Structures are given as C-alpha cells and as structure tokens.
C-alpha cells in the first residue's frame, strides 16, 4: 500500500522490545466468531509505542483501533501474536496476571468517564491504588489534583460534577498510580469542545511534565493533533503513521484511507 508519509521499517520477526518502547504488538491477530461468520478484527498488526510519548491510534469505524487498544491494555485476549508490556508478554497469561497488570502498570480513561457513582471524586481517583492495597503518593496526588483543577471537588460525587470535571477525575485516576502506559479510549467523545480541548491539553502536559506514556484511540483529527505521533489502522492492518501530526495532515491521511477502500 503506497503512501507518502508512511514508513514501516520493522519486520515482525526481528521485532525487539528495546528500552524506549513501553508497549508493543507483534503480529497481533484477533478473530471474532468462527467458520463463515469469523471476522478478523486485527489481521497481523505489529506496532510499538515509545516511552514518554503521546500516540494516537486512528482509523475509520471498524478498522480495529478499539480492539487493538483492548488487547494492548490486557482487557481482551488476542487470537495469536504477542503483546509486550515492558518485558512482559501479556498474551496467553491467566486472568490473574492481566488483572494485576491492569491494576499496577496500566491506566485507563474512557469515553463515558466510568466513575463509580457511590464514591467521591477522591475515592474514585485512588480506587486502583486501593484495589492494589497501595497508598497514593501524597505529593503526586496533590500535584495532579491541582494541575487538573479538582482541588475544590474532591468530596463531590460524580453526579455533582460536570462532564469535563468527571473526565478530569478519570484522568487523575489513570495517572495517580504512575502506570507505565495510560490508554485513553475516545476521551473527548462525550465532551463539548472546550472541555475536550482542556482534557487533551492535560494529557499532553502529563507526557511533557511527568514523562507519561499515553496511547489514545480517537476518530477526531483535532484530538489526534495533540499527539506526538499518529498510527493509522484500516481493516485490521497497520495503514501508516504520521510523526508530529497536525489537523490537516491527519484529515488528509484519513480521507486517503477512505478513498482507498
């Protein structure tokens, strides 16, 4: 598939997880169903995500971008291939190990916030640490709460917060455990443009200030433009990537993908 800005240099079998790669997929295949109705949602994807960088995964609907993220995050198991989180191969691990990895090494931000309605904002933020039996680093907690503008909202419950505030609580929850990777699934999908821009700025700031690794799935070129790099998917395959994207280059790439189908 010829494409000017695209360069896939790595060949699957030579793939090595080197020091600067936080998480990687190697020849990842995910098949839903079986027989005639089988759908190959991921069809041999090999891609790595660097430490301390903000990467966006993009692609048309049904391109497999959400499935890729779910597999990378240990939420779903792949049919074949490998997912490497640091030195750990997440594929074919028992649920216990995946649970532990999600709890201690991965953070999540979801489209619909997914806060627990019965917990206060503060309790929602520390939930993954509580589950791991760890106490939050008070310095980091204060820094995050201040940076995310949640200082006056910690005792509120989710129903008393605006959408943007809820998503900032979710972001704090993802960051407070210092995970190796934060996965964000359409984090601005349920927000108005101002709140959305704010959340994206905060995501970028966390990469810059905390050295956080972030992988974000989005279909919004405006959101992708905040990232350091965009990985494009189409029909379950890698379809190119863009370094230092802006809205125009991302929109162009997506239009070309759509035209090529």
């Amino acid at each position, binding site marked *: 598939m010829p494409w000017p800005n695209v360069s896939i240099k790595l060949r699957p079998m030579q793939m090595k997880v080197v020091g600067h790669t936080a998480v990687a997929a190697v020849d990842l295949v995910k098949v839903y169903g079986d027989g005639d109705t089988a759908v190959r949602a991921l069809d041999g994807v090999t891609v790595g995500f660097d430490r301390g960088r903000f990467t966006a995964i993009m692609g048309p609907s049904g391109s497999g971008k959400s499935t890729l993220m779910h597999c990378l995050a240990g939420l779903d198991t792949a049919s074949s291939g490998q997912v490497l989180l640091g030195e750990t191969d997440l594929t074919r691990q028992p649920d216990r190990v995946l649970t532990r990895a999600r709890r201690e090494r991965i953070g999540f931000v979801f489209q619909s*916030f997914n806060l627990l309605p*019965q917990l206060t904002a503060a309790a929602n933020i520390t939930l993954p640490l509580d*589950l*791991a*039996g760890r106490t939050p680093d008070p310095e980091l907690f204060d820094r995050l709460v201040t940076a995310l503008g949640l200082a006056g909202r910690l005792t509120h419950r989710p129903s008393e917060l605006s959408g943007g505030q809820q998503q900032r609580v979710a972001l704090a929850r993802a960051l407070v455990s210092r995970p190796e990777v934060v996965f964000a699934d359409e984090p601005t999908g349920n927000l108005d443009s101002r709140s959305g821009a704010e959340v994206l700025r905060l995501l970028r700031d966390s990469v810059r200030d905390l050295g956080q690794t972030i992988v974000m799935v989005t279909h919004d070129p405006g959101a992708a433009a905040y990232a350091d790099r965009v990985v494009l998917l189409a029909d379950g395959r890698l379809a190119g990537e863009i370094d230092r994207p802006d809205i125009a280059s991302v929109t162009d790439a997506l239009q070309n993908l759509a035209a090529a189908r």
Partner: protein
Amino acid sequence: MNAVLRTQLAGVARRPARMLLTGLAVLVAAFVVYATVLAQQITERSVLNGLSGTPEAVGLVVRNGTITTAQLDRIAALPGVAEAAGRAEAGLEVSGGYLGLIADPGSGPLSVVKVEKGTFPDGPGQIAVTPRTVERLGLTLGASVSADAGTGTAARLTVVGIVAPRDDFGSQGYAPTSTVATLTGSDLLNQIDLRLNGGADPGVVSDRVATLVAAGGSPETRPEVVTGADVRLDEARTAASEVDQVFAVVGAFVAVAVIAAGLIATSTFRIVFAQRMRQLALLRAVGAGRSALARALAAEGLLTGLIAGVTGVLGALAAGHALPALLGVFGWTVSAPGFPIAAALGTVALAVLITLVAVGAPAISASRVAPLEALRSAATTGARTGIGGLRWLTGLLLALVAAAVAGLVAVNLPGPDPEDYDPMPLLLAVVGSGGLAFLALIALGPALVRPVLAIAGWPLRRLGPVGRLAVGGVGGSARRAAAVAVVVALGVTMIAGVLVGGASVRTLAERELAASAPADFELAAAEGESLPAGLADRLRTSADLTGVTPYRRVAAVRVAGASELADVAATDVAVGALPRLGELATASGSIGDLRPGSVVLARFVADLAGLSAGDTLVASAGGREVRLRVAAVLTDMAPLHAGLLLDPADLTGLGAPAAPTGILADAARDGERARTAGLQALRQSSAGQPGLGVAVLADERDQINSALTVLLAIALVLIGLTVLIAIVGVGTTTALSVVERVRESGLLRAVGMSRAGLRTMLTTESALYGVIGAALGIVLGVPYAWLALETTGVNAPLTLPVWQLAAVFLVLVALTALAGVLPARRAARVSPVRALGTE
C-alpha cells in the same frame, strides 16, 4: 393494543428471564398458597381414611344414656345382630400407679386390640396390658397385682396377655366386659358396638334395638342408636376440624408470606423500570402519554402476575401429586390431593392482584420520567437515596402511633397472677402496634439504611477496598437495600419473637418444673407416715440411681405473718442436693441464706400472709411453734408443691418425724432405658412395703418440653416461608442490580479488580441486605415479643436467647449471601470489554 404496550411486551419477549426474576417472589408465594391448600386436602383425606377409632365392622352403636349389661345380652340375642361388644372402663390403682382397664372382646372384627404375647383374658381376675404399660407399671406377663377401683376393696389381677392398641399411653389394660363390670361393681356400660349379620337390614335392626333400650328407662336417660358409619364420620370430622384449626393458623403465616412477596415484587418492579428509564423517557420524548405509559407498565405487571401465579400453582400441583408417591417409597401412605380448581383459580387471581398492587406505585413513578432523561448519559443518573418530606412525615407519624399504642399496652399490663384477665384486647393492640411499626419501617427504610450500614459496615470497611466498595454499593442504592431489608426484617422479627417467647415460656416451665418435678423419681410414704429407716441408704447403693435425696414434709402448717394462713405444706428438701432445684428463682432475697431460724416462702404464701424478705413469721403445727425470718420469696411454688422451705432443724421443731417421708432420685443416665432401670431399682427397694407410691416426675417434664419444642419447630417452619420469600427477594435484587451495574463491574475489572474480588464484593453486598434486615428485625422483634409475653399475663420471665438470636442472624446473613453467589459469579465472568461496551 397500544404502541407503548407493544414496545414493552416486545422487550419482555426479548428478555424472558428478567420477567421471571421480577415475578419470582410472586411465583413462590403462589406456590406456597396453593401447596397449603393441597396439604390441607392431603391431611384431611389421610385423617378421614385412617384415624377413626371405631372399627370398620361396627354397624350400629348404642350410646349416650343408661346402658346395662343385661341390655347387652338381650341386644346380642336380637335377630340380625351377629355380635355385640359392651364398652366400659374401670380406673384402677395398681402398685402406686394408675391403670385404665378397658372392656374389649379381645378378638374378632369388633376388637380394638391385637394380642402380641400370651392370650386375651377370658376368666375373672385376668387382664391384658399394653407394651408400654409393661415397662411403666412393671406389669410383666404372669405378674399378679392388687388393684383398687375406688370401691374400697382390692382385687387380685393376673396379667395373662400383652396387647397392642391403636394408641399406647402406657397406662392401659384390656379385659372382657364382665371383668370390668365386676371390678367397678356396676352393670352400667358406656356404649355398645354391634356387628350385623350379612343380610340384615340396618334400619330394621336399629328399630328393634331402639325399642328394646326404650323399654323401662326414662326418656332422659334413654340411649340413642346410631349407625357405625355416622359415628366414624363424626370422629373423622372432629379430627378434620382440628386439621382445619391448624391450617387456619398456617393460613395466617401464609398471609404474611404473601404480603412479603408483594413488597419484594414492588421493589423488583422499581428496579426493572429504573433500568428502562432511558427507554421510557424516549417513549415520552416521541410522544407517549403519561397515563398510556403507566397503563402499559401495569399491564406488564398483570402479565407477570398471571404467568407467575399459573406457574406457581402448576408447580404446587406437581409437587402435591408427587408427594404421596415419594412418601410411598419410604413406606408412608398418604392420600393424593384432588384437583381443587376453584382454589387454583383463586390463587392465580391472588397472584395477579398482589402483582397489580405491587406494580402500581413503581409504574406511576416510572411514567413520570422526564423526556429529557433520554438524552442524559447513564453515568449521571444516580439513584435517589433519600426520602421526601411527605414520606418522612408519614413514617414518623406511623412510628409515633405505634409507640403510643405500645406505651398504652405497657401502662395497662396486668400484674402478676391477675384474675379474670382477658389478654385478647391487649394482645391485638400489640399486633396492631407491630404492624404500624412495620409500615413505619417501610416508609423510613431508606433513611435507616445508612445509619445501620455505618455500624454494620464498619468491620467490612476495615477489611479493604472490596469491603468498602460493597458498603458503598449498598449505601448508594439505599431505597433498594431498604426494600429488600424490610422483608428480611419481617421474617427475622417473627423468628426473634417466637424464639424470645419460646425461651421465656421454657424458662417459666423449667422454674415450675423445678418446683413440681425436681427429680426424675419421687418415692413417697402415705399421708402422715414415714419411710422405713435405711431405705435411702439402700437406694444410694443402686447403680441405676443418682442424687438420692431424702426429705420430710409436713402437710398442715399454720403461718402467721401480717395475716394468718392455714394448711400450708412445709418441706426441708436440701436445695443443693439436686441440680434441677438450682432453677428455682427468687422474687426477693436469696435461697442461699436459708439456715436454722429462717424460711423460704412460695410466692402465694408471701402474698396471702403479707410477708416479704426480712420479715418475721410464726409457723405452728400440732401445738408447736417456731419463729422464722423470711430469707427469700420464690417467683412460684416451693419444691414439691410446698409453701414453706425450712431448715431440717426447724421442721423437727414443728414436730416432723425423724425418718424421711419421701425420697427424690434421678436416673443415673439419660434416656428411656436408664429411666426404666432406675424405676425398677426404686420398685425393688420398696417392694412389699404397703402405702409407698412411686411417681415418674421425669415423664411430666418430658411431655411439657417436647410439646414446647414441637410448637416452636412448627412456628419456625411456617415463618420459614416468609424468610424464603425474603431470600428470593435478595437473590432477585442482586441479580437485577448486577445486570444494571454491568458497566460498573467492567470498570472495576478494567482498573484491576480481580474476578474473585468482584465476586466477593457482590456477594458481600447481598449479605449486607441480610445484615441490615436481620439487625432491624431483631431490634423490632425482641421488644415486641417481650411486650406480647407480658400481656398474656402468664408471669413468664423476659428471656433473651442470645445464642439463638446470634445463630438466626448468622444464618440469615449466610443465606442472603448465598442468594447473591450466582448473580455475582455471572457478573465476574463477563469480560471487561463487553461490560464497558454495554449501553
């Protein structure tokens, strides 16, 4: 059918399991109601078939009037009469015990006994006894005893046979009519049973018999002649009416269970409608009217009730008809129930009615949903946890009235030993107050959940995040938790009431038994005589007896306190010698202070003579006098039905003989065998000494204990119905909550909660429903049980069976936890991706 209803029903058809869950409590209630109807039928039919005491062969019965043995002979000779059996009974005193000697032909179809050993007596002075009588009275085959029928002359009787009657009471013998008549010295009979010849016309024979018995006697004493079939029917009807009475009580418990099912159904409808809130809002947004929506939801409820009712009835029918076959395998014969159609339709109608009542409030409040709700995101529609002002007001008002009624009852409680006291009005007031308190609980429930949870959840919160989340989850849906917990509380209240009442009555019975039956056996000399010297020492050597305690008793003592009292019995039995005497309770003072110069009074003596602990009285008997200080007043009688308990020295001062007048002893071991052995040891020692009576006090105690235990067991089983429905409610609620909170489960899994953690959390939540319910139930049940007990005026002490209540609490919590296990497992199996994707 309108469009709204069509949408709803399409939704139901898509998820039939959820409808089943909604109707499950009603289904169980319908099952229980119809099963009760069938159980009554089974019982009545079995009773009618088997339990008539009159033999099948009896064609005519002459009864209720003056019937003589001469008439018996003449009736037997009438044409058409094949056989005539005269029924009479003689009450005999045999070796210190009572023996009822019943007239019976001994063989043939008119006999009510079967000979097991030896022969049926056929000569004068011969009797047959039942197997238990052999053990109890020591009347072995071939034994010869002296018997007194109250005529003053003793006759010698020889046991020639052992026979088995339908019911063996352990004190009955059988003999021909002539033997019984000789013993009673009377030619009167209670009844004559007739067997007719095969071809005889019962009507004709009946007329002949009637003419015969009418001759000579006055009209008032003329006996009636009825057919055996009528007598059997009468007996069966009496038995059946007892069954009816029992089932009336059962019905009351079933009614409570049905109400519980209604409460559960209301709660489940609320949950189901809440889950569809966005869909309902959408219907409203596209133009569905409020009333159309409410009607559609009510129609869905009606359908649920109909299906649940029919399923429950069919289930009960299947179980009812399977039961006789099942019991047949174990060798028990019971009749199959019929197919009571009217009751079946009634049960289904009841189920529909209950469901309609249950669906009403949820349907109306669900139809009030704002159309805007459809546009709101699911995460922000938090469940309302508090209650409105009107509900607060109603709840507090109900609680206030309940407390006022209870207070009124408390003020009007009867004193100890009231006379002409009718407990019914006060008891009804207690029940009414309890009902109001329950309504208050329903109204205020959601507001009570949080405080109860704050206390009950404290140890859980300390256990870690899973416990904290479970407590938070229950507190977050306080209305739901309250709805389920109230039903659990209903069951626990009743259980706690029965346990507390039962324990108090048992304590009362034990105290009374400590006084009346302080030991297994009592060996007593005749009035005014003493036991032979050395008897107590001989008994002490027996391996079959323990705690042999000789005592003396003076029958008529005069007590002079503030007022005078004559003919009070006094005893010097040593309280420390028998363990059961430790149960004696004092109203004031201490039994331990009893020493020479002091006395312990039965309550009635203290009341009548105007004495209390510390006072001084003068006791006199046979011209002797002693001054005594009152050491203690008992709550009831003194041991051995005495009024005064004295030190031996003081009893001697009142002129009691040196030798004991009676001996108390326990069997060396527990059980019927040890008791029989002990009894035989006593009999052997006292053999050949006229006037000695041996009483088995343990039998009396056993009877009271077993009657109480059976009563409590039955009550608890019946309450179990309500508890069952409460547990079904907890299971349903947890299952529906899990469906509703699948996103939440997904999130928790995504941020690193393990499968086991999620399972534990959801199971703990469901157990917490049990904790809240059981706590509320015990708090409500114990005081009401005490109040009810006080209103009965039986002078029972208020007892708190702590261990039993703790066990009820734990069992209830375990059962509610169990009800949550399956839904929790299901929730934990769902993958986090699927859960997060669910709308």
